[in-house]
């Protein structure tokens, strides 16, 4: 807001503020609702009586989670996955993006490689070949299946390539004159200059690895290998009553335990909520900064 604002612009500003407040309220509402359900009485939650304030406030769900070893086991797997996955992806994508950001005169295979990359972006073999490949490589049931499979997100590579290409060519030449080789050029010149885009891509990767659940289900043999989101997904997935049998009715009540599941979902959200503020300042400049340079 500028100082010499007229009434009109001020009105405009305030409207913006109100609209944005409403939008952020809409974003916060599901989080708040989940928290309220997790702190409520089980029967009240299943009767749909909980709205913005817990009904029959209690900590039982959280106490129960504290005793749930498989929840924390999966939590630990997810942390491993995020740390390994984010580091591997960042190293590979950066090293891939640098040569691809050179012109075809400097690097003759550039265009061919780029085509291969784009091809994989548009087409893939589907689930079954993917599963068979992972199995044949001996990655099934290991953390590597989740980390290496999909370790090169092509979209992210392209983002970084474009950022690199928009950095001034003059810097490049200056470094060359000073006797820097490709490695030195990448790590002392390009990487520090590209911190915004790298931070953005890191955030994408972390969020992806934290939230992805389907590979955890398909590429592992059971709960002791599940990352956290797979563990949660199996709890909240809608059960089909059509083929249920007697002992399944018995467990139906536990399965529809909304309060416990809400507590688990809430705890699972915390890490991403914590990472966001730290990377967010880069995120704001992130992608746009690269595109407006020059």
């Amino acid at each position: 807001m500028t100082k010499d604002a007229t009434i009109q612009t001020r009105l405009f500003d305030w409207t913006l503020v109100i609209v944005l407040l409403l939008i952020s309220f809409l974003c916060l509402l599901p989080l708040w609702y989940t928290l309220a359900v997790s702190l409520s009485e089980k029967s009240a939650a299943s009767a749909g009586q909980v709205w913005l304030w817990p009904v029959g406030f209690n900590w039982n769900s959280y106490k129960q989670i504290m005793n749930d070893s498989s929840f924390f086991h999966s939590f630990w797997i997810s942390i491993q996955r995020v740390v390994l996955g984010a580091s591997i992806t960042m190293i590979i994508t950066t090293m891939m993006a640098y040569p691809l950001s050179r012109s075809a005169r400097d690097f003759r295979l550039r265009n061919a490689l780029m085509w291969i990359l784009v091809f994989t972006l548009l087409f893939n073999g589907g689930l079954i070949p993917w599963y068979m490949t992972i199995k044949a490589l001996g990655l099934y049931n290991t953390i590597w299946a989740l980390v290496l499979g999909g370790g090169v997100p092509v979209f992210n590579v392209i983002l970084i390539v474009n950022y690199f290409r928009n950095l001034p060519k003059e810097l490049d030449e200056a470094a060359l004159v000073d006797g820097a080789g490709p490695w030195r050029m990448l790590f002392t010149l390009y990487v520090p200059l590209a911190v915004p885009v790298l931070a953005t891509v890191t955030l994408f990767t972390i969020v992806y690895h934290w939230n992805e659940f389907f590979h955890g289900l398909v590429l592992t043999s059971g709960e002791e290998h599940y990352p956290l989101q797979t563990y949660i997904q199996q709890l909240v997935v809608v059960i089909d009553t059509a083929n249920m049998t007697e002992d399944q009715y018995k467990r139906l009540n536990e399965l529809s335990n909304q309060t416990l599941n809400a507590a688990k979902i809430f705890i699972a959200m915390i890490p991403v909520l914590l990472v966001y503020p730290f990377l967010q300042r880069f995120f704001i400049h992130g992608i746009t900064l690269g595109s407006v340079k020059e």
Partner: protein
Amino acid sequence: MIKKKISIAMALMLVVLSACSQSEGNKVNTPSSSTEEETTHQTDESEQPSDPFGKYSETITLTYGKAVDPSDKSLPAGDTPEKNQYSRHILDNLNVDTKVIWQAASGTNYDQKVNLAISSSDLPDALVVKDTQLRKMVKSGQLEDLTDIFDKYASPAMKNFMAKTNGQSDKSVTFDGKMYAIPSIQVQSDGVHEMWIRKDWLDKLGLTPPKTIEELEKVAAAFVEQDPDGNGKKDTIGIAGQQNGGRLYTNFLESTNNTFGLDPIFGAFKSYPGFWLENESGDPVYGSILPETKEALGKLRDLYAKGLIDKEIGIRKSAYEPVTGGKAGIFFAPWWMGYGPLPDAIKNDPSANWQAYLLPLDADGQFNSRMGAPSTSFVVVRKGYEHPEAVIKMLNLLVRDEAKFDISVPVGYYPLRVPMSYTDESEYSAKALKEVLAGTKKPEDFTDPGYKLLAADIQNVKKVKKEPYDNMDIQHWDPQADTGTWSRIYSLLVGSSPLEQNYNKVYSVLYSQTKTMESRWSNLKKLEDETFMKIIMGAAPLDQFDKFVSDWKKQGGDKITEEVKAYNQ
């Protein structure tokens, strides 16, 4: 330049294609190598007599995929879904070492894993599958023929269970005269949908359980308008409906346990949409396209317009909500509601007196119920597994010992467990409990171990049922004493007792898919579901039904009807 790019793309395709054919080759190899093993094993098998419970002299292994319940925490420390009291029981008695090759939460996740295993031909030795999966596996030749082995090794008790289904179970696993799976045998009460009604509301408003559609309409109107919950607000629902993704009525593919559908209302019009019926000349017809169905839809449309059916039918996130929240007065569901949603409903309102009836009746005073398929899950054995009879022995053992197991650990942990019981188990148990309570029979009079939970039920019944024993109203129960026991006994005495009456049982001519259905059925079903919901909710005129019938026939329905006819001959 463009040419170059295309050629690169094509080169890539070649790599992909050759990779595919490579794996194809592997697939062909595996069965041939295992057939050799099979022949060797058959020779040593003939030396031993075929004993249904025969113990192997050397430990053999069997790998399988397991559906688990993620919320279950009953396993003692150190035990796993793979190694527990049940797997040890099998190892001790049969010398079969069972290994879980993968596990997933029962339901969608387990199905996904099974589909993945089928498509990639990466199969464990044995699996529990659904009907569609069984058909796919038979078609791609992945399964061992169990005809002779079952004949030789199945225990008399197991054959007895099969016999009670009048050949329906055999039929579901026999393809070209060969038996490819062992079917589950489920209680028939799972397919009968009853009317559950708030009797305390009826009493308060001076009404009786509605016997006909007209009375149903009157009672529902009273529930909506006369404030039965006494909170001074007009916020009650007459008839609750299915949730988002739920079904309006069961169908021949998913023929049991449709909670909150409206099946009995259709039944009162002698209409059975979703089922294959026989017309006067004995030819199969699809129930959804018959005039009775139009009549039933017209009535439902009328009830909905008057606000007597839940306005949010088919949209609600959970159909349980209005019931546990004390807002609904009538819903339709099978016998086991004591397991859920009723425990939460009485926790919120201890006076919620839900009772079950075989109502409403049709114009001739008869209750018409569609019946479920007796078998919905199937145990299959991978083609080439060396000891297919081990699977049958494991199931023999399950049937023999199920009543004796310590069920503080659910019996679902038994490897390859599928339900096996007499189809009349719940009605029979309800009747037996009533006779014991009335003192006309003694616990010792019930000795058939096939009714496996009955002995425990008789022992527990007085824990939760208070006197007078012949009055089933909620104030004569003690749910707090033991919720688990209450769930079962209430389900039996309130939910299953009505099934002792005579009622008209309507079976579908077919409980599985024909060839054209594989490609067409999902679209036809979508057309049906959407049209019917639109008609009920008033978004389309009732005469839209006639257009639906002709569309259905044109879009493959006629061809499918022919196939069903051929299938039945």
